[in-house]
Structures are given as C-alpha cells and as structure tokens.
C-alpha cells in the first residue's frame, strides 16, 4: 500500500513570498489533515477535510493560509505572504474515515520542510 505522498520535500523562500504544498493521501482515505510542526514541538492541526468538505479549520491563520481539496483526493496548502514564524515542517496525514477509531489511526506523509528567510 502506497503511503501519503507530499511535495516538495524542502522549500526555502523569503518572507512575503508565497508557497504551496501538495499532498496525495492513501487511496480510499476520506479524511485528510494538514499539520504544522515547529521544531521541538508536536504537530498542530491546521485544517481537516472530510472528502472535499472542511471539518475543522479553527487553527488555520486564514489571513495568510488557505487549503483546498477540490475532488476529495489530493490537497494543496498555500501560504501567502509567508512570515518568518511559518518556518516549520508541514505534515499531511490521512485516515480511512471520520468515525471513532478511524480518526485515531492517521497515516502521515514525510512532510515538507519550509524555511522562511
């Protein structure tokens, strides 16, 4: 079974530039998550999709971050404009469904390391 794919793996940009990350979840997984993991911290959920609908985006800084999952499969996360404090690893995860038990079993991709200079 193929895992969660993410690209790019690394990105270096200057502040105020824009950047986009791509995620392809495990085939058949309805739920997709984007997390931000700052160095030395645990992942923080940014947004959760169930198919192509948003379930939770309460911690997404909507003035600069946006995400979409148009066809209910792959997803993109965009930052515009980037700030220095956005330097982090952006992790994508997927789970089979939204029910109890499914959500607790999330499969993570390798992440995209973003450095904002």
């Amino acid at each position: 079974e193929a895992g969660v794919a993410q690209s790019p793996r690394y990105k270096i940009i200057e502040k105020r530039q824009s950047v986009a990350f791509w995620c392809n979840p495990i085939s058949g997984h309805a739920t997709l998550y984007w997390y931000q993991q700052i160095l030395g911290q645990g992942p923080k959920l940014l947004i959760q999709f169930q198919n192509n609908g948003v379930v939770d985006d309460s911690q997404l800084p909507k003035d600069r971050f946006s995400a979409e999952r148009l066809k209910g499969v792959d997803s993109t996360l965009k930052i515009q404009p980037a700030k220095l404090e956005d330097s982090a690893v952006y992790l994508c995860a997927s789970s089979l469904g939204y029910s109890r038990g499914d959500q607790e079993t999330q499969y993570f991709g390798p992440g995209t390391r973003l450095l904002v200079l």
Partner: protein
Amino acid sequence: QKEVEQDPGPLSVPEGAIVSLNCTYSNSAFQYFMWYRQYSRKGPELLMYTYSSGNKEDGRFTAQVDKSSKYISLFIRDSQPSDSATYLCAMDTNTGNQFYFGTGTSLTVIP
C-alpha cells in the same frame, strides 16, 4: 497551561533497558490516547492507540492510561537501537475532531 505536557528529554538508555515515556494532560474529556513514533526527517507513525483507561500491550510496547491521574505512559521493553526516535503522545475527545499532541520525547538507545 498546555492541554498536553510531555518531557522533551533527551532520554538516553543502553540497549536492552526498559524505557518509560510519559504524558500528563489537563482535559478530563480526553478519551482516546495515542502514541506515535517519529524518526528524524520522517512523519509520525502510529504505535499504540487506547480508548479510555487501562493497559494495552503490543510486542515490546505497553501503553497505560490512568484517567484519574490524567497520566499516560508508554513502556518499551528490551529497547533496541532501532527504537531511537522521538515519541509523541496524542489525545482526543469523544466528540472532538482534532488531536492534541505532546511536544515529543527524544529517545536514544545506545548499542
């Protein structure tokens, strides 16, 4: 106060030792308790998942939940160098739809 507290370590043990990793939490509504392992430059992978209180064993790994103390533990028996990683605890409520992760404990098992 953070929802989930976890000692970041680092923790260094000799091969074969028993390792104890712990998290405390403040939200009594947490019902689901997970342990994830994260190797350097990789995404986290689920190790153990426990609902409510009690123990769960899987090979060399044992997860314990003490809801009365708001304290969870992960024990690793006969630790191996391949266990060297960061261990993250995560928690969720019955009705919630997001995890609360600890900061992770960095473990090194020395051959």
